[in-house]
């Protein structure tokens, strides 16, 4: 009696060339120089970080470049305790939605330098950059965010971004 074949494993790979486009290229070159570049929407005046070249809300190009601070506020977060193959942080880690000072939209990054149970909404944080010689055109140039030690921000200042 031969065992029937019920399933086989066939790994797949997908490789592609990625063209970041004009706006994101400028953002990534900025990161390589320790700068966070945003773009302001001429219509709603919100600053997009990373810059994408347009405002999806107003459907207009965003051209005016503005420097955004590398400090910000934790808008909301989750403590991740589940492993995932693509993620290389030690568990548990805090995945935070961070609104940089001067930005109009938050983005996700990892928050370190404190116990996960101490993370709070409204917490003030600062980017921890990789050493200057390792800076490159990638978000990975910002290793993580860490608490800045400033008092927490009031919900009114970031509530609309949760």
């Amino acid at each position, binding site marked *: 009696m031969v065992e029937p074949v019920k399933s086989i494993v066939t790994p797949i790979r997908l490789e592609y060339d990625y063209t970041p486009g004009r706006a994101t290229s400028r953002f990534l070159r900025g990161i390589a120089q320790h700068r966070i570049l945003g773009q302001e929407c001429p219509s709603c005046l919100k*600053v*997009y970080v990373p810059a994408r070249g347009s405002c999806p809300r107003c459907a207009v190009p965003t051209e005016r470049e503005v420097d955004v601070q590398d400090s910000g506020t934790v808008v*909301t977060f989750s403590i991740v*305790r589940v492993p995932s193959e693509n993620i290389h942080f030690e568990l548990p880690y805090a995945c935070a939605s961070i609104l940089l000072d001067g930005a109009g*939209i938050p983005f996700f990054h990892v928050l370190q330098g404190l116990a996960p149970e101490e993370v709070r909404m409204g917490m003030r944080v600062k980017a921890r950059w990789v050493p200057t010689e390792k800076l490159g055109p990638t978000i990975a140039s910002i290793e993580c965010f860490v608490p800045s030690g400033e008092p927490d921000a009031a919900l009114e200042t970031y509530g609309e971004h949760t």
Partner: protein
Amino acid sequence: MAELCGIVGIGQTKLAAKRVDVSMPGLVREAADRALLDAGLGWADIDAVVVGKAPDTFEGCMLPELYLADSLGAPGKPLLRVHTAGSVGGSTAIVAASLIQAGIHDRVLTVAYEKQSESNAMWGLTISAPFGVAVVAGAGGFFAPLVRGYIRRSGAPADVGIRVAVKDRLNALKNPYAHLHLKDISHEMVEQSPMLWDPIRLLEACPSSDGACAMVLAREDLAQRAPTPPAWIHATAMRSEPTMFAGRDAINPEAGKMAARDLYAKAGITNPRREIDCAEIYVPFSWFEPMWMENLGFAEEGAGWRMTLEGATALDGDLPVNMSGGVLSSNPIGASGMLRFAEAAMQVRKQAGEHQIEGARRALGHAYGGGSQYFSMWIVGSEKP
């Protein structure tokens, strides 16, 4: 004027962690055969097939609609595939209905499925973007911060999510097709289950399931002849919005509110909580019940959790929600939206067995997907609109 469309056949497979007894074609065939049997029809009676599933990268089966054509009886017929992430089961049914409503076809078979045991959805959803860093772990990693934001904004008591998790698992015990049958489910059991994506616990999250759902839709005159009275489609609506834009309210997305407004207007509904008898909505993480109660206009903003707390959404409440046990009890991703739509239809056809709501005449089916950016919903009734 659009033609009237009726749901004349509904079929679903047993939803389970691993259906090793069937292949993907076998899985969809099982649901389709049951829908045809329910409709009292054969393959020759079907004019077109509309199939939906979540991203191909989950199972790694590219263009599955071509691979499944034979098992869906599609050779020689129009075959169409729909894709709108997690909401796809709902939008697939809506696309199928529109082929009847537009007068293009007389009878359409629509099928949605997922075989999560042959896939790795967590990997598929943990996106490592070029020049970026992967930090968001799967769907839970994306939605957990939204849940935290909702709890803070609404001031909801911390155990609302636990109550939803218990209610839906109790409902699932009445549904023989449900994946999870947790006979000893309790508040303590959910509370003590491990935190996966704080504030979401293991038992506040949906399982990974294999399963398929199918429906046969027919034009008015043909639907009238069905062996079991049809569920009539009163209204359908779909809306989408970008995942990220400045000022986006991801907890209570505008696209969902717009879809609900459009749906109620088309169905002539002015007070959804009073005029809809029960709702089967897409709740993959327990806190999404109160969040969607608000988004769907059943509760004021910030007050959705009160419905859960007061028991309004229980089987004996004034608006039973997720009678089947919902996504929290079974999640074959691509099929999950269609299972919601099908449950709404089963309720108004009095086919829901032990989880039947007495006197359900008008029911809502709802699905959402992506980063809460695709919404699809329908209202079906036992009477013609």
